[in-house]
C-alpha cells in the first residue's frame, strides 16, 4: 500500500472535469484507489465519490493505492494534480 499527500493547485478546484480525469486514469489500474480528505474517505474510481469530496483550491488530499500496480497508479494520479489538470 502506498500513501501520498497532495495539494490542489488548480484555481477551480476539483470540479467535474478533473474528477472525470482522475476516475478515468485510476480505472485503468487494478489496484484499489481511495482518496481521503479530512474525515471523508471515498473510492477514487467512483465519479460521484470524487466529486463528493468537493476539494477546493488549496485543500489537501491523501491518495491511497493498494495492489499490484499501486506505484504506477499513484504516479499517474499525482502527475495529474501537479499538471493542474491542464488548467490554471
Amino acid at each position, binding site marked *: 500500500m502506498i500513501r501520498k499527500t497532495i495539494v490542489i493547485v488548480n484555481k477551480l478546484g476539483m470540479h467535474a472535469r478533473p474528477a472525470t480525469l482522475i*476516475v478515468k486514469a485510476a480505472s485503468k489500474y487494478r489496484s484499489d484507489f481511495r482518496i481521503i480528505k479530512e474525515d471523508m474517505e471515498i473510492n477514487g474510481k467512483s465519479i460521484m465519490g470524487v466529486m463528493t469530496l468537493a476539494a477546493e483550491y488549496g485543500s489537501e488530499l491523501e491518495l491511497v493505492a493498494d495492489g499490484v500496480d499501486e506505484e504506477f497508479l499513484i504516479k499517474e494520479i499525482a502527475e495529474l494534480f501537479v499538471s493542474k489538470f491542464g488548467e490554471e
Partner: protein
Amino acid sequence: MKKISVEEFYRTKKKDFSLSVITNPKTLEKDITSQYLNRPGLAFAGYFERFAYKRIQILGETEISYLQSLKEEDQYNSIKEVLVYDIPCIIVTKGLSLPQQMEFLANEMTIPLLSSRLTTDKLYHSLRKYLGEVFSPSKTIHGSLLDVFGVGILLTGKSGIGKSECALDLVERGRCLVTDDVVKIFAQEDVLFGTSTNEYGHFMEVRGVGLIDVEKMFGIQAVRKQKRIDVQIELMPWKDTMDYERIGLGDNFVDILGVKIPIIYLPVSPGKNVAVVIEVVAMNHILKLYGYDAAKVYTQKLQKDLQKKAKLRHASIEGGE
C-alpha cells in the same frame, strides 16, 4: 432518383384522395419523379417561362373557369400547348367537369388525367405530405426501435449483444415496440422516423426460442407502427479500455440521413438490467427537453461550492497571518 408510377400512386391512394381515372388506363404507366406540385394557370394563359411541367399539375376551379371562359378554338390551343410538355400526371379537384378537349388531348399525349373529389386546398396539402414521405431520403439499419415514455429509442449494436431481449424486456415493462431487427428510417424536415419493413406484424426472433408475435402476446398497447427517433443507444460489450460517459456533460451525436440525434454508448455485461437504464435514458432526455440537465445542475452546484470554500480558505489564511 426516386420515382413512383402513376399506376401505383392511384392504386394505393385512390381512397385517401378519392381519385378516379378519366383517361384510358394505359396512360397510368407514367412515372412521378418530383415531390412538388404545380398549378398550371399561367401556362394555360400562355406563359411558359419556368413552367414546372415535371411536377404533378393540379387543376382547381381557377384553371377550369379560366379555360371555360375561352372561345372553343383558343381553349383547344391553350390546352394543347400545355399538354405537349411531358407532364407526369394531371389531377383536377372537386370532381369538376373538364373541357371536352382536355380528355381527348390527354389521351392523345398519353398524359394521365385523374379527378379527385377533394377540394384543391385539401388535396394539395395531403398530396404534398404523401409525396414528401415517398420521396424522403430513407435507409434501413440493423436494430430495434422502441417507444419509451414517448421517446423514440433506436437500439443498435452487434448481432447477439441482446437487442431483441432488451426490447422484449422493455415491452414486458409496458413500453412499446415499433420494430425489431430491421428499422426503416426516413428523414422529413430534420426529423427522423422509423418503421418496420415487415408487413406481417410485430414478430421478433428470440434466440433459443424462435419467432414470437409480440402483439398477440402482449396486446395492442405493446406495439406501434411508426415513431419519431429521438435517441440512439448503441449496446456494446464492456471493455476496460473504452471511455464511457461518466457525467453526461458533453453529448455525443450521430448523423443519420443528415439529421443529428444524440447517441449513447451503453456497455452491457451479464446480469445488468439494460431495460431500466434505457428507461432512465428516455426520462433524462425528456428532462433535458424541459430544460433540466442533471449533469449541468450538479456540476454547477459543485463549482459554486468549490469557489466559496476556496475564498473562505484564502480569507482564513490571510486572517491568520
